[in-house]
């Protein structure tokens, strides 16, 4: 289960903005996505469109955006609410734009996810589930990111940072804070998910 707390009473979708609409560029992108699906199956485009909307709206989805997507795809609104609330990647409450997602599932946890989290707390200055005081980062735990071979793992924006420990995590976050884009992938220097202690097979290959 997702570690996030279930949202408070589902009387209404929490905060809201008055209106939402895609920017002309995003609308073009949306149309391209919709065009991938056969006539009458536009609803299949709901996930990419929600991502697009979330990116446009600074990292979270207000009700107006959900309703807008529903309208665009001629879907019942509730169906979009179901999708948006089902997937953890969608945020239905205001959260800072840069999401720092730390995997805390068993393999990562065994390999030191706690240390990673500690570094995050220190650098970002906030707890899990909170926005950083500078309003740029949102820190949260995540379930298995599917990169266990390089545990522990952290996912920021589009990038995976792997083979982390306390120091490496700090370095990555500080670089991002400075506005740099640190090199994604294993931070230990190994290539991909090759054995940590060097190759054991296919020795004659590069």
């Amino acid at each position: 289960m997702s570690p996030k707390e279930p949202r408070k009473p589902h009387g209404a979708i929490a905060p809201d903005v008055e209106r939402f609409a895609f920017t002309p560029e995003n609308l073009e992108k949306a149309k391209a996505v919709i065009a991938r699906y056969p006539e009458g199956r536009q609803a299949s485009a709901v996930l990419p469109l929600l991502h697009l909307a979330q990116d446009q709206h600074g990292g979270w989805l207000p009700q107006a955006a959900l309703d807008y997507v529903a309208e665009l795809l001629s879907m019942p609104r509730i169906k979009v609410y179901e999708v948006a609330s089902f997937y953890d990647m969608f945020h239905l409450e205001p959260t800072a734009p840069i999401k720092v997602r730390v995997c805390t599932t068993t393999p990562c946890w065994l390999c030191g996810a706690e240390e990673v989290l500690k570094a995050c707390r220190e650098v970002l200055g906030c707890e899990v589930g909170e926005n950083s005081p500078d309003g740029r980062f949102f820190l949260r735990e995540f379930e298995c990111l599917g990169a266990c071979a390089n545990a522990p793992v952290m996912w920021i924006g589009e990038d995976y940072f792997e083979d982390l420990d306390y120091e490496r995590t700090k370095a990555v976050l500080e670089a991002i804070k400075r506005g740099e884009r640190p090199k994604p992938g294993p931070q230990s220097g190994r290539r991909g998910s090759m054995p940590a202690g060097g190759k054991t097979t296919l020795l004659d290959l590069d």
Partner: protein
Amino acid sequence: MPKVVINGKEYEVPAGITVFQACELAGIEIPHFCYHPRLNIAGNCRMCLVEIERSPKPVASCAMPVADGMVIRTDTPLVHKARKGVLEFLLINHPLDCPICDQGGECDLQDLTLFYGPDHSRFRENKRAVADKYLGPLISTHMTRCIHCTRCIRFLEEVAGVPELGAVERGEHMEITNWLERALTSELQGNVIDLCPVGALNSKPYAYRARSWELTKVESIDVMDAVGSNIRVDVRGNEVMRILPRLHEDVNEEWISDRSRFAYDGLKRRRLDVPMLRKAGRLEPVDWREALRALRERMAGLPGERIAFIVGDLACCESMLLVREFALRLESPHVDCRQDGAKLPASPRAAYLFNTSIRGIEEADLCLLIGTNPRWEAPLINARLRKRWRRGGFQVARIGASFDLTYPVEHLGDSPKLLERIAKGRHPFTKRLKAAERPMLILGMGALARPDGAAILHLARRIAESCGLVREDWNGFNVLHTAAARVGGLDLGLVPGEGGLDVAGILAAAERGEIELVYLLGADEIEVERLKGAFVVYQGSHGDRAAPHADLILPGAAYTEKNATYVNTEGRVQRARRAAFPPGEAREDWKILRAVSEAVGRTVPLDDLWAVQRRLVEVQPMLGRLDVVEPGAWGAFGEAGPVSDAPLSSPIQDFYLTNPICRASPTMRRCSLEILQGAPPPQEELALLGATGTHG
């Protein structure tokens, strides 16, 4: 056909059914929550587990198709253990609040736990608590009790076609909600109360009013529209506590509309419970003797042509028969049961029936709607149309104002002139009608209750005849009534006789002073003010629009208070049964008319219900054949003539307020405000939702 072995016995079952259905056919009950024969299979509650040979684990029978040679067991220790386990899981997060739960006594979870469940709980942790939702004036929620069977979601999506409920979040955090704190808008939403297998969705107006086992259940017929839904009226003492649907595959299946279900609180309000007579300009209560005497005096010497009768929409056949007999004896030709002015003849019968029959809709492949909004005029007929559409190969087109009918409708235009073009073959739709195998048209009151109604009726008949809608084996010509009384009235010939006036004529004649006495039998949908010049007798149950203008009020019975016959729009004759007694001095309507006829010296010699119903059958033999639909006689009807260009629309402006009972119902008024006019939900109710009373 596949052969299967169930509990050691071999059965041959139809191909394509599920293991669950096979067991049902074999007479073996399988406990279940999420499965419902009229909804898509969800397979999420796991209550229906059975053992199937060569399957390593118990199988959810509702989602498993039968295969030839399957060996199914439903009574093994493993199955019992599985059921027990499922129930224990379901109960982990279900509150043990049966004593304060409205569903108690008619709860699937309670019953199944009793029969199959564990006798104690091993769960020591905290239960999950879910906040209640606001779904509007009709449905109250206790979401902590929800077992996530998703029946409510599936019903609204599939049957009602108004997908407004969903399951948000997932896993342990899943919640059923519309997520908006706004009322649901389906006019069939009340059915989710029956579908919910637990006490999560309950009736709001009925909340904490009664326990199911202290109610007397009376099987009856609904009169809120002309569908003739089969209902069960639950009463305690003399009070109607709630109304539920009864199964009738050919009429309402197992659903009823919200008007049928929730308008009953209008039975207790604004009732006329004592005769009243206008004295010096004011209506004052009098006793029956005085009321009848006043009428005798007023009618003395009045010739028949100065007396008129208008029959309202909720009248039963019995009282209408008395009107007929009484008018005959008074020699009054001015009798009309079409208070909306629909230009329908009293014969041939096929001219005013829904000839295809409600079930017949399922065989049609093309439908033309003319001046009707079936979703509001007859929600269950609309649900059938939707059911047919969902199966595929069914197209619907419309002439008249647009309205979301929950399925796609091709809009041909608004003007009745289109009918002329279709009839003359000068419209592409003619070809499509001719090409269709089983085409049907539905003519609404919006097309008939207008000055050119007879011409429209004529055109519709011509279309029906020329485009193959009326054949030996198929009749696709349909009139959709909105009044429960109408078909019965037409069957009894309650239309103006030789030289008689219809409703419009009566109103005009009363203004001119040519008609001096107008007898209204529950007729509220007319311009009563125009009757000022005449002496107005109002016989009916509610102090609605007409009563304040009456000079004499004779309090009658509502549909739940009499044994009465109604004929639905298909021509199906059904009997309503008395569930309660009329309030105060109010009496059954046929009796009142009988007494009136005697008081004025023109006695109708029908002395008991038997005699009345025998006479009914003499007048119209059809009325003796209960619950069948017989093909009506076809013939010439309608009047050739010009049709105007005025757009067609539905006669119903407000689904929730169509008759005196609805208008007296606070629940219906609230629905009208919140659902149709978009009024915000009451703050007090929203405030109560925060906490559930049933934590742990």
